[in-house]
């Protein structure tokens, strides 16, 4: 119950900060890609629209999730709003989970709004419905959920700027860890090889959640794979949120 109260407050704060204007920006990007760039792409109009649409949706939502997420606990402490919340019967985990759910709802609403626009525009451009886009959009949201949990953990540890830098690094590593491991095995020293393997097996592999190119090229994505990817993202999110709670519980509000 207290978690829901915290989540609703976080969502309301995002809504009143006019976060949802991002949908408008996205709408313009998709319309431009669909009706301006598309026609000059030699028969690849649908693919170009979907590619630019999914990429810009992922980038915009990542930006919003990281900008809000890395400051979500830090700012509560800095602005001292945390004093009146954590002096009430609210546990650390209820506070963290509430913040997480609120931000997950904001990003969920954003991906939903953007997804509807993308499916509509791509339907108009190609004169057919593309249900496979739903799975790509859903997994973008799952990736964002994992990254929100990571940025909330960062928010309990360091300043928003530092947190955003770390999250961005982990985002890049998360998308390239398989390639990095491959490169290290081929060309690296034994130490680099070990380091790349440690990175590969401990950090989240965000490529598991990226089915964008498959969907755009018409390759079918299994429901079982979507469920696996979903569980993978949620498990990492759970680990990050548990760590964030442990850090918060040990914090002293001087």
């Amino acid at each position, binding site marked *: 119950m207290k978690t829901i109260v915290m989540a609703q407050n976080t969502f309301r704060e995002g809504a009143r900060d006019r976060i949802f204007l991002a949908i408008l920006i996205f709408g313009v990007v998709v319309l431009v890609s669909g009706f301006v760039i598309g026609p000059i792409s030699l028969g690849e109009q649908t693919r170009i629209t979907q590619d630019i649409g999914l990429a810009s949706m992922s980038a915009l939502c990542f930006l919003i999730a990281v900008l809000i997420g890395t400051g979500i606990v830090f700012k509560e402490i800095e602005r001292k709003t945390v*004093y*009146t919340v954590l002096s009430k*019967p609210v546990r650390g985990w209820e506070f963290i989970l509430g913040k997480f759910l609120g931000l997950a709802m904001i990003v969920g609403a954003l991906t939903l709004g953007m997804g509807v626009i993308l499916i509509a525009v791509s339907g108009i451009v190609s004169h057919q419905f593309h249900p496979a886009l739903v799975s790509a959009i859903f997994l973008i949201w799952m990736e964002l959920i994992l990254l929100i949990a990571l940025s909330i953990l960062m928010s309990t540890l360091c300043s928003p700027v530092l947190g955003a830098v770390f999250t961005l690094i982990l985002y890049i590593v998360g998308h390239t860890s398989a390639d990095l491991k491959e490169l290290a095995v081929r060309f690296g020293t034994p130490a680099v090889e070990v380091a790349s393997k440690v990175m590969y097996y401990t950090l989240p592999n965000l490529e598991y959640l990226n089915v964008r190119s498959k969907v755009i090229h018409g390759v079918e994505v299994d429901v079982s794979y979507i469920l696996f990817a979903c569980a993978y993202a949620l498990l990492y999110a759970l680990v990050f949120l548990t760590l964030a709670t442990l850090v918060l519980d040990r914090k002293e509000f001087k």
Partner: protein
Amino acid sequence: MGSILKLEGTTKIFRSDLAGRHLYTLGPLDLEVVRGEIFGYLGPNGAGKTTTIKLMMGLLKPSAGRISYFDGSTTVFEARQKLGFLPEQPYFYQHLTGRELLTFYGRLFGLKGSVLSDRIKNVLRQVGLTKQAETRISRFSKGMLQRMGLAQALINNPDIVVLDEPLSGLDPVGRSELRDLIVRLKAEGRTVFFSSHILQDVEMICDRVAILAYGRILKMATVPEVLYGSVTSYEIVASNAPHNLVRKLCLGNLSTRGDKTIITMPPDVDLNESLKRLMAVGVVIEAVNPLRQTLEDYFMRELKNGGRSVARSQAESKIFAETSKENGA
């Protein structure tokens, strides 16, 4: 009357670095607040009042000692359900209106429906913010924020209200209204613990006070004990008292207030004998006022005495530590 809040040897040590060098130590503090009283926690800036309150609210963890509520049976977290807390210079979510903010805090206590809306109406009326209920917090003045802080501290109908410097930043009217509210809270059966350095307000409304300085409680006493315990001097208001005549009697200092002569005498003087001597030379006695120390006098004296004793005990422990080190070596 049972105890509602108890600090037993509560200590907080802030370390300056990983090497563990001490930066600041508060305590050990021993303090007991009795159910239904208004308890004033006094001290100069930096004495450790806010740190004590944060320890009491669980926002800081004590390095040693114990804090308990409700006859020692309840931990800080369990007690929060019946605790109200106003932090110093409270900050709130700027995106919410007054009513939304109170709804948010009320729901954290599990309140909902008509119970919550009645409570909100009640506390808004109590703090005089009914008309500003739909105004965004970002548009609130400092005084309004302080009132909103008090409203959120009362939303759960608490048994004990802990207020950190509630009177600072308020204009005289606001201070007077807040004092009245604190007295009303006591009349409703609540316990109020508040920190302040505005001694006049504390003197007017508190039952007991504790004086904190140099990280230690120097004194704990009832306000009557402090104020009425000892007469510091007597003031005789007289008329028809030529100064040269009165001066010859050597009773005390002379001054004038309007057309009256004021004779100020030390507390150990034989008052009856002095009055007789004055009347014998034809002086008309208009009034005799025993002058007692103000809380400020008391506070300043305790601070001075306490400072000396703390410095002495710190020096002694330093000598002891050095001697032990030398012996050890």
